[in-house]
């Protein structure tokens, strides 16, 4: 087997799709358009850091494209591809939390500190952000995947790597705590 055949011809004119490449450039562009916003929202809300969400989102897509999973997109469909992408992002978040914190205030981008949100976002952030900040990272992930993305318990288990049997109880507890925090912040809005 000649070594040239092993190395993808990146600099060739139209970068042909290799045998184990998940998708071609056009298919990826479509997939990206459809999935980027929800992935970024997940990363931004769970991490609480939009700049970090940007970095982790890029890394998630790079790993997704670099992964050797033949036929992932072609055979298993976009839903499975999306789930796999969320799984990569979840693992990246976990790795980030395991690393010791070293960022100082000077290293944080100014845009992150500036208030560049509209009033609806401000309402949503004012409501959810403090409550999320008081939740554990795993609970944030579970709540977002279940209630923002609408994933089933089985899908959440696949994304997070947790046992399927424990998802129901963990989610129940997290939801109860979150509802309590939301009602605490906004007693009128929380009443039904």
């Amino acid at each position: 087997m000649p070594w040239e055949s092993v190395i993808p011809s990146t600099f060739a004119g139209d970068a042909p799709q290799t045998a184990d490449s998940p998708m071609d450039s056009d298919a990826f562009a479509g997939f990206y358009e459809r999935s980027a916003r929800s992935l970024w929202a997940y990363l931004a809300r769970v991490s609480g850091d939009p700049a970090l969400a940007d970095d982790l989102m890029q890394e998630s897509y790079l790993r997704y494209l670099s992964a050797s999973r033949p036929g992932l997109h072609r055979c298993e469909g976009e839903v499975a591809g999306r789930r796999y992408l969320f799984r990569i992002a979840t693992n990246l978040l976990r790795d980030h939390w395991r690393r010791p914190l070293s960022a100082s205030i000077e290293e944080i981008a100014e845009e992150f500190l500036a208030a560049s949100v509209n009033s609806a976002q401000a309402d949503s952030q004012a409501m959810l952000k403090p409550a999320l900040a008081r939740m554990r990272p795993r609970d944030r992930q579970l709540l977002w995947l279940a209630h923002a993305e609408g994933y089933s318990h089985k899908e959440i288990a696949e994304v997070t790597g947790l046992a399927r049997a424990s998802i129901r109880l963990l989610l129940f507890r997290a939801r109860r705590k979150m509802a309590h925090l939301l009602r605490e912040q906004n007693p009128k809005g929380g009443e039904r």
Partner: protein
Amino acid sequence: MTLRSCSHEKEVAELLSRGQWPQACAPELRAHISACRACGDLVLVTETFQRARADEAGAMIVTSPGALWWRAQLRRRNAAIEHVGRPLLGSQLFALAILLVLAAGFMVSQLRPGLPGLTWLEGLPLAHGLHLEVLWPSALFNSGWSLLALIPVLATLALLGGVALYLASEKR
């Protein structure tokens, strides 16, 4: 905290996921939700998260996927190059190991006549046990250019060993 779920939870979750809450909700179910804590929590949390998701998705600036695509291709290419280079490194190490073993064997065999400072080497079992001198023509060692002739032989052996290992690992 005990898990006390409600039988209406599934129904409420479906209404929420379809975006039919509260318009398409029956009055009885609405009355139940206002009284049931589990269903009330579900509605409150789901509504809040869905609103946040919509807001966050609007706030994100979608960058071009083309750059990501090319970066991924570069990463795949680098990984492939590393994959190809791995047997080469292995064969180089193997060749070096062979060369060192042969050089050590040669040194031991040359010390047989006995050097004043290194007589202790003759006492080693390796020196007596290997008898590497039988591999070579005795005339070669007796002549003055023995070392000069041996170096290309050793180098060729090491090279052949490395090539053999590379071919073996490349096939695998």
